[in-house]
C-alpha cells in the first residue's frame, strides 16, 4: 500500500548529525576515549596484575565489611569457582569495565540528579531524556558508540554509561526531594547556604536512596557490558557470545554462571555499603 506522505528521512538526518559531530568534535572524542581507556586499563592492571588469591581475599573482606558473613562466604566460594572454571581473567576484565562504567555514571549522575532536585524545569527536561535512554534497545547505543570511538572497550563503556546512568540520576533526585520539608526549613532558618544545606542535610539523608540508585546503575552496567562484548569489549560477555554462536551449551552455562556470580556479588556489596553506618 502506498504511503500517505513520503517517508521522513529520519535515518539520514541522524547520520548527518553523527557525521557532523565526528567531523567537528573529533578531538573531544579522542580525549574522552583516552580517559576512559586509561581508566579501564588502570582497573584491569590492578585486578589482573595482582595474584587471584589476593583479589579474592580483598573482595571477601570488602563483602564482609559491607554486609554479613554469609555474603563474604558467598564471595569467597563464588570467586574460587570462577577461578577454578578458568574464567578469572575474563571476569576481571568485565569487572574493570563495570567499575569504569559505574564510576562514570556516579560522577555524572549524582550532580545531574542534584541539579534536577534543585530545579523543576531541569527535572522536566531530564526526565523524558532518561525515559528515552532506558527504553531504547540497548544495542542501538552500540552503533554511534562504534562510530565515534571505534571497536573495543571504550565504546562498550560509553554505551554502558548511557544505559546505566538513569537510575542514579532518578534516585538522587528522588532522594533529595524526599527530605522532609521541615528539615529543609530548619536548615534555612539557621542561615545555611545552598551548599551547606546540600552537604550537611540533603545528601546525608538521601544517602540510602542514592545508594539504591548506584546499585541499580552498577547492575545495569554489568548487563550492558556483557552485550558490549559484541563490539569487541572483552570479558565474560565475549565467552557467552562465542558459546551462543557456536552452540556450545556447556561453555555458555559456565560463562553465564560466572556472570551471575559477579552480579550477585556486586549487588550485595553495593547494597551493603548503602545500608551500613546506621548503628
Amino acid at each position: 500500500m502506498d504511503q500517505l506522505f513520503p517517508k521522513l528521512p529520519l535515518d539520514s538526518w541522524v547520520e548527518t548529525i553523527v557525521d557532523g559531530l565526528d567531523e567537528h568534535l573529533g578531538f573531544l572524542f579522542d580525549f574522552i576515549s583516552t580517559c576512559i581507556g586509561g581508566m579501564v586499563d588502570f582497573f584491569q592492571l590492578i585486578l589482573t596484575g595482582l595474584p587471584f588469591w589476593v583479589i579474592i581475599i580483598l573482595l571477601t573482606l570488602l563483602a564482609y565489611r559491607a554486609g554479613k558473613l554469609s555474603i563474604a562466604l558467598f564471595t569467597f566460594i563464588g570467586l574460587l569457582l570462577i577461578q577454578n572454571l578458568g574464567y578469572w581473567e575474563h571476569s576481571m576484565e568485565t569487572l574493570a569495565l563495570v567499575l569504569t562504567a559505574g564510576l562514570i555514571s556516579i560522577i555524572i549522575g549524582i550532580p545531574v540528579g542534584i541539579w534536577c532536585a534543585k530545579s523543576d524545569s531541569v527535572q522536566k527536561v531530564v526526565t523524558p531524556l532518561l525515559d528515552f535512554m532506558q527504553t531504547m534497545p540497548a544495542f542501538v547505543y552500540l552503533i554511534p558508540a562504534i562510530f565515534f570511538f571505534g571497536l573495543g572497550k571504550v565504546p562498550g563503556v560509553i554505551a554502558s554509561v548511557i544505559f546505566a546512568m538513569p537510575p542514579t540520576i532518578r534516585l538522587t533526585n528522588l532522594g533529595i526531594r524526599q527530605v522532609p520539608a521541615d528539615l529543609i526549613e530548619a536548615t534555612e532558618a539557621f542561615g545555611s547556604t545552598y551548599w551547606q544545606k546540600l552537604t550537611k542535610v540533603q545528601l546525608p539523608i538521601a544517602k540510602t536512596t542514592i545508594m539504591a540508585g548506584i546499585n541499580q546503575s552498577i547492575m545495569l552496567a554489568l548487563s550492558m557490558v556483557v552485550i558490549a562484548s559484541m563490539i569487541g569489549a572483552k570479558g565474560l560477555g565475549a565467552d557467552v557470545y562465542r558459546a551462543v554462536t557456536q552452540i556450545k551449551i556447556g561453555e555458555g552455562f559456565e560463562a553465564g554462571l560466572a556472570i551471575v556470580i559477579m552480579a550477585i556479588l556486586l549487588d550485595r556489596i553495593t547494597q551493603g555499603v548503602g545500608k551500613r553506618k546506621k548503628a
Partner: protein
Amino acid sequence: MPKIKVENLTKIFGRQPQRALPYVKQGKTKQEILKETGLTLGVNQASFEVHAGEIFVIMGLSGSGKSTLVRLLNRLIEPTEGRILIDGTDIVSMNTEQLQQVRRKKLGMVFQKFALFPHRTVLENAAYGLEIQGIPKAEREAKAKASLALVGLAGWEASYPEQLSGGMQQRVGLARALANEPDVLLMDEAFSALDPLIRKDMQDELLELQSTMQKTIIFITHDLDEALKIGDRIALMKDGAIVQIGTPEEIMTNPANEYVERFVEDVDRSKVLSAENVMKRAETITLDKGPRVALQMMRDRGVSSLYVVDKKKTLLGVLTADAVSEAKEQGKSLESVLRTEVPKVGPQTLLNELFDLVAFSDIPVAVTGEQDRLLGVIVKGAVLGGLAGKVNQESSLAASEERQVDA
C-alpha cells in the same frame, strides 16, 4: 525602639500575587479574593510591634495564617508586601547573604515537629547553627553542650534524635535554637505535638528559662490556654488578619469582636481571671462609729457583715451582724467584738486558687493590696459570675493601666 516592628505585612499565595493586592487594600475578605482572583490570601496586612524581652503569642485556628506569619518574619516564606524591621533594619529588602547573617545571628527557630536532623547526634544537632557559621569544633560543641544543659539534656549528647521521647526531642530543638544565642526566638507551635502533661512542663520550663534569658519570643499556638499562660501579649488571627492584640486579661475581658468572644468562650476562666476581676466594692465602717450605726448600715446595704478600716483604708477586721447586735445589747464598743482573723487574698490571686477559701468562709473574702489596703471583697456569687463571663470592666482596665505605668 521595638525589637521587631511589622508593617502592613501581606502574603498572597499563587501566580502573580500582585494581582490581588488592590482587592486586599479594598478590604475584601479572603473568600472574596479567592473567588475573584483564584489567589489565596495568607496574611492580610498584619502590623504589630514586639518589645525586647517579651513573649508575644500569635494565636489562631488552623488556616488563620499564623504559621505563615511566623515564616514571613525570617523569610522562609517571601512576603508579597510590607516591611519587617528587626532592630530597625528592614529584612524584606535584604539580599540572600544579609538575610543569612540575620538568620544566623538574630533569629532562632523551633518547629512543631521538632525538625531534628536524624543523621546527627543530639550534640551535632544543637551545634548545627554554629557549625554553618564556621565556628571551630571545640568551641561550638562547648556552646552546644551548655545549651543542652540549659534545657536539661546534659548526658544525652551522643544519642540520636530517634532514641529520645517527643518532649526531649523538642528540648533538643530548643537547645539548637538557643545555641546561636539569638535575640529573637520564633516558636512555631513548638509544644503542640507533645502530650498535655509534657506540654505543661515545657511551658513552665520555657517561662523559667525566659525569666533569666530575656529573649524576645514569638510563640505561635492554636491553644488559647497556652497563649494565656505564657503570653505577655497575644495577637489573635482570623483569615490572615490580626483581629486583636492585647494582654491575656484584655482579650478575656474585652473581646474586640464576636470572633474573639467565641474564641475565649471555652477557656477555663478560673485560670485567667484574678480576684480583682470579680471583687465587689467593700462595705466599710470605721471604728469610731457605734453599734447602732453599724446595724443601720447593714440594714441599708443589705449585708450581714462590715469590714472595718482606718482612715488610710487599712484593713483592721470584720464585724458580723450577730456580733454587732450583741455589742448593742450589752453596751460594748465595736472594737471589743471586732473579728481580726479575716480571710484575705491579693488582687492577682487566680480564681482557681480562691474556690476553697470563698466556699468555706461565712463572710466575704477580703481583697487587699499593699500594706493591707482593702481593695474589695469577693462573695460566692461573684466567683460564679466571673466564671460565667461577668467581670468588672473598670477594675481590670484600671489594673492593666497600672501595669502599663509600671512598664
